[in-house]
């Protein structure tokens, strides 16, 4: 039975259902409970933006706050995963990966390979990314490219409440380390979400909108921006197909290549900085394996090569807008 709930609630529900299903699922992070040791209420925050709210009341010590020690926190999640638990660890903002990255890419990601298959590390790292909150350069980054670069990590970027729930349940049941990237500007987005538990397999792109003239591959929140652009372009008679990869690693090459085979034209929309990014990754895939289908140069719509500015006026210019996507689509459509 589906109801309309928010992206944020969808995530909360996924955690709740998995914790109920499997005792080894535990949740940890800074203020994921909130109020630990303090004079007021416990479960005061349920995460800095309230995503884990209410889990403490149901699961008690299976959800735990952490000191501000991300290396120890993430490392503990990784170590617990390697020894029999299924931790879901919150790294509050993806921007903080710099104080704990080693435990992710040198430890969790490499255990299985380095140890010749002698370890499984079913850890999920939930983290918020993206601009739009006027949160400035150290709280607005994308950085999922960095995780995608690393062999051994799976990287998930839900763009809707439905995907958020299904992909998170999948992530928790997956036996490899998963980085689960939540766009903070999507938390309030509503959508149809089944009450029951369900999974969405990794590596299966979602064709969000069918179309015949131009393929738009968009990631995370950019799927929404692309949708707006496509709606406007439809009025001009340009038919866009929007492909949402849903996971950047594994990546569904086939769906993207097939779509480009049909349209011959590709625009990639990626909120992150443009160098060595998902935008370049998808470009290179198509330049290599879809070369003969291409009727126009590939266009990338990305943030510029700069930190995220604080000022709202600047930040709005920074984030790829529907208008910029439309311009890019027109360019390839009229090539």
């Amino acid at each position, binding site marked *: 039975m589906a109801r309309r709930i928010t992206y944020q609630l969808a995530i909360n529900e996924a955690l709740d259902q998995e914790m109920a299903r499997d005792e080894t699922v535990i949740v940890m992070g800074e203020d994921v409970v909130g109020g630990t040791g303090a004079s007021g209420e416990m479960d005061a925050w349920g995460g800095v933006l309230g995503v884990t709210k209410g889990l403490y009341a149901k699961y008690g010590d299976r959800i735990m706050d952490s000191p501000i*020690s991300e290396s120890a926190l993430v490392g503990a999640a990784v170590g617990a995963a390697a020894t029999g638990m299924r931790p879901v660890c919150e790294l509050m903002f993806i921007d903080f990966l710099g104080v704990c990255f080693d435990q992710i890419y040198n430890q969790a990601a490499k255990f299985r390979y380095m140890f010749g298959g002698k370890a499984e590390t079913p850890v999920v790292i939930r983290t918020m990314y993206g601009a739009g909150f006027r949160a400035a350069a150290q709280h607005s980054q994308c950085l999922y490219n960095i995780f995608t670069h690393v062999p051994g990590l799976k990287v998930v970027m839900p763009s809707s409440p439905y995907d958020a729930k299904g992909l998170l349940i999948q992530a928790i049941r997956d036996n490899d380390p998963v980085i689960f990237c939540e766009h903070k500007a999507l938390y309030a987005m509503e959508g149809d979400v089944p009450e029951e538990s369900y999974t969405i397999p990794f590596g299966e792109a979602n064709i969000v909108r069918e179309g015949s003239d131009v393929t738009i591959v968009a990631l995370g929140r950019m799927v929404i921006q692309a949708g707006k652009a496509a709606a406007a372009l439809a009025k001009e008679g340009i038919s866009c197909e929007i492909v949402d990869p849903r996971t950047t690693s594994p990546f569904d090459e086939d769906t993207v290549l097939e779509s480009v085979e049909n349209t011959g034209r590709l625009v990639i929309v990626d909120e992150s900085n443009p160098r060595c990014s998902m935008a370049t990754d998808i470009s290179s895939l198509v330049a290599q394996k879809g070369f003969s289908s291409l009727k126009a140069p590939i266009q990338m719509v990305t943030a510029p090569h700069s930190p995220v500015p604080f000022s709202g006026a600047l930040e709005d210019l920074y984030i790829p807008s529907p208008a910029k996507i439309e311009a890019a689509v027109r360019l390839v459509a009229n090539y």
Partner: protein
Amino acid sequence: MSIDLSVEDLLDAYRTMKTIREFEERVHVEFAKGGIPGFVHLYAGEEASATGVCMNLRETDYIASNHRGHGHCIAKGVEVDGMMAEIYGKRSGTCHGKGGSMHIADLDVGMMGANGIVGGGPPLVCGAGLTAKMKGNGGVALAFFGDGASNQGTTFESLNLATVWKLPVVFVAENNGYAEATAASWSVSCEDISTRAQGFGMPGVTVDGHDFFAVHKATKEAVERARNGGGPTLIECKLDRFFGHFEGDNQNYRAKDEVKDIRENKDCIKRFSKTLLSDTAITTDDLAAIDKEVQALIDNATAKAIADQEPGAADLLTDVYIKY
């Protein structure tokens, strides 16, 4: 109490504390009105710390701050107009609107930046201390960080490095009892943060951070030691914040009347004023004059900030590199 500061210094201290307080109270009000974007962490209640500490520093000394940085900025001499405009994201802001509340910096007055990363500052002051040491200019570098940051690996490493390299550095842990909604009494694994100094071969001291004089004295000793080649010190100031972790925080992790009690009984400015009036020649008129002055300063800064222009497209890509 025997006070070894001049009346002028004491009035300066009062002016600084009051400026911070009024600045923060105003930002609180303006934020609630919806005019201020982003995450804003207010320093109100902790003024004795920034002020008592920074009075011991020269303009050429450096501080690194954290997300709760307005007080440190003001105490170190950053212009209030620029700060307010910055918090509004305006062009005349200290950082031309690119930084915001969490990233105010002004290297010209020795302010190395607020920081959005908990524990980001301590390594940086090791560097500023190293510069002073290499240049032999008697400079000192000082890091402000919270009880939460006292658990961050970068902070511990900096304590060790400062001792090993014998750096002219002071570490000031502002323990306001909370890191976001988490109690320091829970997250810090020892009674006093200053206890940790011992494991890093430096003196450690805990002071009442509501008491300007206690903060001033402890810092004075630490800064002198640093200037004289005696190496780093860890000072813990125990204090309280008046507002939530950030603006918008409903603070339900705090006991019902906690803030009320703090405002009534642990207000560092009230306490400081009382001492000034009872133990020095300073009068209520002196303080009232400053209050007025500060009020005008903040009113003016706010009005200007609101009226100022936002940056525009031409500013988006400047200052990424000096030269690319």
